[in-house]
């Protein structure tokens, strides 16, 4: 890899982040929502008379820099970003937006990476095996059977899972990340508790996307199947399993890996509903809440994090892609 390529790639990365953060800023300012009014409204709805509403509004606007002209706000925003400062959360002043986000982040990353990788692995295997010639025909239908799950919206799937497994059969807990009030430490019991609570959320994400992976893998695999190197490998008397893993899958995975980075971003969005249903701590819920309360800085922070995550995933992927596909040289 040449320094020049690395430079170009990094420049693209920075550009993406830059454009995305600008868009971010623009979109949140374009909505007619007013976070401070929302704050006062919420107070009034809970029986508090806010007699000096106008003053409080002005006070907050000033403190949060919302009374500056937009270009100034934009410059401040970008300048702060450079320093890793996302600004105050408007709904939870005086807490910083990054504090709100960073607390939720590990949960989302944990849940998401497990779910994504699981769905990716299982989905691709299913899809590949669906067209692999030496697989019983009945197995092919597994792929088709996985489709209805993808047809049921995440949210409902999660609800149905809760009803079946948590309520009716009590196999899994009703929600949360841990048993309330449990003692936590770095031990097996804690890990077990964690996994027990994560099972249903992960399952609902996995079930919902597995079919899509399977479907596209099925298409790619069917193309790969006719490739000369597969026939040649078979002609050389290689074992079917070896051909499947090192010849067919290894090549068919290449386009899927590219899709993985993009899909990662989409999954983050999908996560919102799952986190709500399972009362699971995470960024999805933070985003949702912030959107409802028009908490601009938190919204910007979360979106920016998502953009960053996806852009970073794509960057890493591009950089390691030559390792996966030796034909690619930069």
């Amino acid at each position, binding site marked *: 890899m040449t320094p020049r390529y690395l430079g170009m790639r990094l420049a693209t990365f920075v*550009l*993406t982040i830059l*454009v*995305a953060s600008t*868009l*971010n800023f623009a*979109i*949140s300012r*374009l*909505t*007619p*929502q007013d976070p401070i009014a929302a704050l006062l409204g919420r107070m009034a709805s809970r029986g508090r008379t806010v007699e000096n509403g106008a003053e409080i509004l002005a006070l907050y606007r000033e403190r949060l820099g919302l009374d500056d002209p937009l270009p100034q706000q934009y410059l401040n925003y970008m300048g702060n970003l450079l320093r890793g400062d996302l600004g105050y959360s408007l709904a939870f002043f005086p807490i910083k937006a990054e504090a709100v986000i960073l607390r939720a982040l590990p949960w989302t990353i944990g849940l998401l990476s497990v779910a994504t990788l699981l769905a990716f692995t299982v989905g691709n295997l299913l899809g590949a095996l669906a*067209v692999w010639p030496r697989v019983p025909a009945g197995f092919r239908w597994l792929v088709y059977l996985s*489709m*209805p799950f*993808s*047809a*049921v*919206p*995440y*949210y*409902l799937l999660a*609800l*149905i899972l809760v*009803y079946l497994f948590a309520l009716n059969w009590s196999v899994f807990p009703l929600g949360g990340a841990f048993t309330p009030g449990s003692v936590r430490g770095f031990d097996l019991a804690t890990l077990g508790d964690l996994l027990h609570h994560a099972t249903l959320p992960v399952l609902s994400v996995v079930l919902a996307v597995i079919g899509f992976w399977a*479907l596209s893998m*099925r*298409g790619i695999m*069917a*193309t790969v*199947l*006719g490739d000369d190197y597969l026939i040649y490998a078979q002609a050389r008397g290689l074992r079917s399993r070896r051909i499947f893993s090192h010849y067919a899958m290894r090549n068919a995975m290449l386009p899927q890996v590219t899709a993985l980075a*993009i899909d990662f*971003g*989409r999954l*983050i*969005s*999908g996560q*919102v*509903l799952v986190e709500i249903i399972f009362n699971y701590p995470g960024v999805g819920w933070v*985003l*949702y809440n912030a*959107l*409802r309360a028009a908490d601009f800085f938190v*919204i910007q922070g*979360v*979106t920016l994090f*998502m*953009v960053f995550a*996806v*852009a970073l995933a*794509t960057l890493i992927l591009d950089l390691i892609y030559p390792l996966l596909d030796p034909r690619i040289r930069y």
Partner: protein
Amino acid sequence: MTRRLPRFLTPVMTLGLALLALVLVPGLLGQFVADPEQMRLMAGGINAPPGHDHPLGTQNEGRDLLTYILKGMPNTLLIGLVGGGSAVLLGTVLGMLAGYVGGLLDGVVRNTVDIGLTIPPLAILIMIAASFSIVTPLMMGLVIALTSWMHPTRVIRSQVLSLREREFVLLLRLSGASPLHIVFRELMPNLIPFLAATFVNAVATAILASIGLEVLGLGSFQTPTLGNLIYFAIIGNAMWLGLWWWWLPPIVIFIVLFMGLFFVSTALDTLANPRLEQG
């Protein structure tokens, strides 16, 4: 070496179309036989199970659910069609031009798409949906299209990139054909099965997205849709109350609809990519 176009009606396609018909025929025509009075408040008892008067029972406001579904389905389909359709339309035009013309246009489109793809769609959707007081199915569709045109654009562009290297395109240029002619009259027909498959996927995605929004309470309340039917079922605790006739039918409809769309798009894939065709 002969190139054959497989006949259109493969078994998978037939199955898909049959499933679609199962949903679309009542979904599109049912609204004309449904009696709007049945959708009114207390048209029947509250939470009545399926019975003679109400084949699919009633919900917690006494509205007849069959009527609700029949009236709601066209709107849901409209969202899918508008959302998926405009995304694919935009994607086709942009993807084709960017892919064929290349140069600056391609650079702009490609980068916009790449950046757009990194921005989480739900964030934009919630933001937009939350910003408008009234959300009609048409608007909902357009809002969804706004966040979903990137994917079609990307895949169509790459298809065109590979097509434009084909010798027949060069021959067409030699024949004095204009770029627009080549893109829309010559390349486009080649991509029809592919576009159709993309369209089918986009419609499915749009419907899923709209349900996600409606379930969050960001949908249209003026007009019945399957999404707000589910939303009301959720806030009415239909599952907890054991009112299966309220939440199950829309889910079954979705499954049938999506399986139909899925089979059709698989069959279309096969048309576009003959290697998928096998025993």
